[in-house]
């Protein structure tokens, strides 16, 4: 726990000096931090509770659209519209989970894709709600204390606060009673039930926390894009990206999703020139390599080796 918190502090410090060292790549920084936050949030459900969702883009979309529609239609500041998005996302996850948590394993995953895809079609076709397929342009933002929220540097600090906040939440969960309940449900629902845990309740709670946090990042993403299109924000491939970031980094670990985000986003940047829009190719290749050679992800494998070495040392005396 202490070690994790020290790590988080180091991350915060590194994050704060990053704009000074590399001011030219702030957009990459925002993207890394957003994906780190989303993947960590996804991991609460997908890694700690073991329920692989491929529908998290829906919550990114909810967050982004609340900020955009709030600002353009109702002159709502993001500090009002983001909490609203969080509430809506959590309620939505509650209904979604109630409906689908009786499905297990791959069937749950399939149902998340189906629901997310229906939401995407709604977002594209219901123009009165979302501005439709043409998209929404955010043309107004309040300037609290003279801070321009359209400025990339300010968005960077928001994204940093978001990523650190989500990771702090995960660290808190990992040592709490709830965290142990999540792991129990992931390993074996029947045994968890025998130990007095209600799996559906635990999974619902994980889904609600996960989706609420994802929506916060979605709101920041909306600010960053400032032009929102439903077929990008609610897109299956965004859900896939979020999930694979966490899985490649290491599911059910505190640092895995961050490592995954740094690795995948920077790899995407490096290969952008050679692969252009086909940068998801890297995700495909990496997930195959991970599955075949490091099934518990980069950090998962690292932790496993560390533990093994520790025990070996202890045994030697």
């Amino acid at each position, binding site marked *: 726990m202490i070690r994790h918190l020290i790590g988080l502090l180091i991350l915060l410090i590194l994050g704060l000096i990053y704009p000074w060292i590399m001011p030219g790549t702030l957009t990459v920084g925002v993207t890394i931090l957003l994906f780190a936050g989303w993947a960590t949030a996804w991991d609460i459900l997908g890694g700690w509770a073991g329920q*692989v969702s491929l529908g998290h883009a829906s919550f990114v979309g909810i967050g982004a659209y609340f900020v955009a529609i709030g600002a353009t239609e109702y002159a709502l500041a993001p500090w009002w519209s983001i909490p609203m998005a969080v509430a809506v996302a959590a309620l939505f996850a509650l209904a979604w989970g109630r*409906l*689908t948590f*009786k*499905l*297990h*394993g*791959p*069937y749950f*995953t*399939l*149902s998340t*894709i*189906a*629901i997310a*895809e*229906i939401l995407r*079609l709604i977002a*594209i*076709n219901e123009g009165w709600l979302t501005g439709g397929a043409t998209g929404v342009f955010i043309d107004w933002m309040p300037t609290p204390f003279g801070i321009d929220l359209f400025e990339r540097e300010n968005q960077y600090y928001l994204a940093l606060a978001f990523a650190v906040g989500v990771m702090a939440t995960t660290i808190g969960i990992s040592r709490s009673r709830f965290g142990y309940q999540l792991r129990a449900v992931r390993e074996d629902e029947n045994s968890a039930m025998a130990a007095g845990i209600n799996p559906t309740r635990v999974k619902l709670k994980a889904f609600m926390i996960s989706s609420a946090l994802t929506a916060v990042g979605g709101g920041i993403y909306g600010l960053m894009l400032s032009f929102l299109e439903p077929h990008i924000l609610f897109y*299956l*491939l965004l859900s*896939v990206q979020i999930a*694979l970031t966490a*899985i490649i980094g290491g599911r059910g670990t505190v640092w895995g999703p961050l490592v995954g985000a740094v690795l995948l986003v920077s790899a995407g940047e490096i290969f952008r020139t050679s*692969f*252009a*829009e*086909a*940068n*998801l*190719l890297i*995700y*495909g*290749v*990496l*997930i*195959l390599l991970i*599955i*075949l050679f490091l*099934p518990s992800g980069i950090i998962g494998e690292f932790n496993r080796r560390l533990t093994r070495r520790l025990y070996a040392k202890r045994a030697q005396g």
Partner: protein
Amino acid sequence: MGELVGLIQNISNGLLIGAVYAMVGAGLTLIFGVMRTINFAHGDFVVLGMYTAFAFNMIFGLDPYLSLLVVLPAGFVLGVLIERMVLAPIVDKPHETSLLATLGISLIIGNIMLLTFGGESKSVYVAYASEVVSFGEVRLSVILLLAGAVTALVMGGLYLLLHYAEFGRSIRATAENRLGAELVGINTRSIQGAVFGLGVMLAMTAGVALIPLLFATPTATGPILTLKAFVVIVLGGLGRVGAAVAGGLILGVVEVLGTAYIASAYRDAYGLLFFLIILLFKPEGLFGRSVKRV
């Protein structure tokens, strides 16, 4: 009377497009039945079939259906290779692992096609595209009829293979009970490779039948078709080819009727909604008798 003719017209169109969905679903259900793998890349194989036909049409000016001569063997070999390299090593891992592996394959295939052919949507224009055959007042387009005929042929062949050939019997035995099949001397490892090859072959054939009918983009069309194939096999009941045929026909009719009488923008949503309802309330499928917990 005009309304009735319209309805018959719509239903026949739905059945014909549904037949192609059935072929896609048959491959997926075959793979699921034997390997217990949910093949996420299935739709991308359909698109790969489409783009192969497209490439043949571009380079040699051949009719898309002639490319079947290449697509059939190439699809089978590709499937066997992928099974050997990626899926065979993880066969005993949890279901999720193979789901993620096929998701990776899907991303790789889709993005390689994107790099090769570019992002614009493609289709093949055939000379007989606007021809129709009239049955009384009902007019059916020739390309739809051709797609339906190819499907009927392929599915007929598949039925004969599964029920009358030794190889097909081994497939069914492996699907029913892998250990039991091994005990009577069936090499289930090679059966799994062959079944994945067969599934990919069916998917790519469906792609060839679909390319004169619709436009396809490399990364976007694949997942949509994968979802449709899931809808098809969950509708009918997992793991049985006959059920996939029924599921495909139902999906085709539901889509066409929803498009015609409710709202065309939600064409892809009707199937998904139906899918969720089935998954939640009758997970063994419409005609299912299995008691397997989903």
